[in-house]
């Protein structure tokens, strides 16, 4: 926790060698998904081998950032760093490429969040890092691309 940060620190991931590149690309505001070079399977979490076929031929490929909300909770009990935001939606998002990832749904009244809602990835600055969050598509925001 740096002394220059006035707010309680929100956690960021501490990557391991098998996840480092995936997180580094997120820090460059680029969402990718690991893809198996042998069987073509897209998967998350990032790892050194394909969980479908065991191949070590794994490469990160660009993800569209589009997805739909598979499920969510509206959290009312914030851990340190998340005070003042409650309730907030912690969702599992099904990416267009297939894998599922966790993130918050931002920029929308939590009461408006529903299952199957289309969302897109945004990159939230957190210290020196970026954290993937999702916004509801068509929620008064301009499409950026």
């Amino acid at each position, binding site marked *: 926790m740096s002394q220059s940060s006035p707010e309680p620190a*929100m*956690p*960021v*991931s*501490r*990557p*391991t060698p098998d*996840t480092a590149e995936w*997180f580094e690309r997120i820090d460059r505001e680029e969402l990718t998904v690991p893809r198996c070079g042998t069987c073509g399977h897209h998967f*998350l*979490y990032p790892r050194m081998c394909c969980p479908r076929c065991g191949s070590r031929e794994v490469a990160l490929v660009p993800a569209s950032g589009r997805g739909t909300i*598979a*499920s*969510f*909770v*509206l*959290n*009312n*009990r*914030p*851990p340190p*760093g*998340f005070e003042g*935001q409650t*309730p*907030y939606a*912690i969702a*599992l998002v099904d990416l267009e490429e297939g894998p*599922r*990832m*966790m*993130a*918050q749904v931002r920029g929308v009244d939590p009461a408006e969040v529903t*299952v*199957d809602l289309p969302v897109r990835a945004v990159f939230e600055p*957190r210290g020196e890092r970026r*954290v993937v969050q999702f916004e509801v598509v068509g929620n008064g925001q301009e499409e950026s691309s």
Partner: protein
Amino acid sequence: MSLRGAVAIVGAAESTELGKVPHMSALQLHVDAALNALADAGISPSEVDGVACAGESPVDVADYLGIVPEYLDGTNVGGSSYMLHVRHAMAAISAGLCETVLVTHGESGRSRVGMTTWRPAPQSAMAQLEMPYGPIGAPALFPIGVRRYMAEYGMTAEQLAMVPVVQRQWAAMNPRAKLRDPITVADVLASPVIADPVHLLHCCLVTDGGGALVLTSAERARSMDLAAPPVYVLGAGESSESSVVQGLESLTSSRAIRLGGERAFAQAGVGHGEVDHLMIYDAFAHVPLYGLEDLGFVGRGEAPAFVADGNTAPGGRLPLNTNGGGLAYTHTGMYGMFAIQESVRQVRGQAPAQVDGVDVSVCTGVGGMFMSSGTLVLGSEATL
């Protein structure tokens, strides 16, 4: 070689006290329960040659009790660990690796005496991929599929609330249960929101306590002078999947419960209609609903109405979580041992809320957020 009925539970007991036990460490709770279970079996620690436990090390439990082990099992896959210990002991005893296995559990979940502070390891998938989004822990992460379940199957908030309501009806008959006052659906929905749709009364207790089992071969069990009849392990199964919810195959079903359950039923050769009594791990209210479906007692999407209609309640056709469960009885953190204890009591005919004529009881444990599961089919002498 069929292991069906080859091994029996000849001792089963919980710690002397449950709930708030600040004068005992977690290891002491293992030992207190172990001494009670050994007394129940009528044997001394020197007659034990195998030790299994989670949380603490089986080395420490064996040494504390002066046991000289020839078999150690430190399998720790969370709350279902004890079902796996029983299954592994079943194999080890049948293969002649050891003769008598002591399985122990103890946690100072509430008082935190002799416990290390729990936090996910920094290198874990949970720390890297879930903690940055601000979950409060299991109460926010474990039920995350519930909204999907509601969307797919039309489960209402009122139906989900019926799980704790019905389990309080059982707890009311159990003097050892921590929460015994009746509650209504309105009470559940009026309790504080933890992580919507989860309210406080959908969540398990946090308690101190322990439990232990003594297992030996069916052959030896018959030669022992036992206070209670042996309870036979008819079948057992186990499986696992992701320790992060985003890695689970389904948000409305547990693959680990399904696969472990299928294996246990197949080994036992028991049909669902022959099951007299059922325990399903209930860290949160939705878990028994998933379990009823994944174990095959009801079809997909049918569990909420099944519970709301009273089928699992006192007088119902499938008594479920008759000790009050983790929601009302006790929940130290890894609850699975207490589910086994209640199955043993019911088969022995010694439960406080005894169901008439229990010959077959099934108990299912869950670890993590559906990360692991183990199922045991236990039976009386009449089932052999």
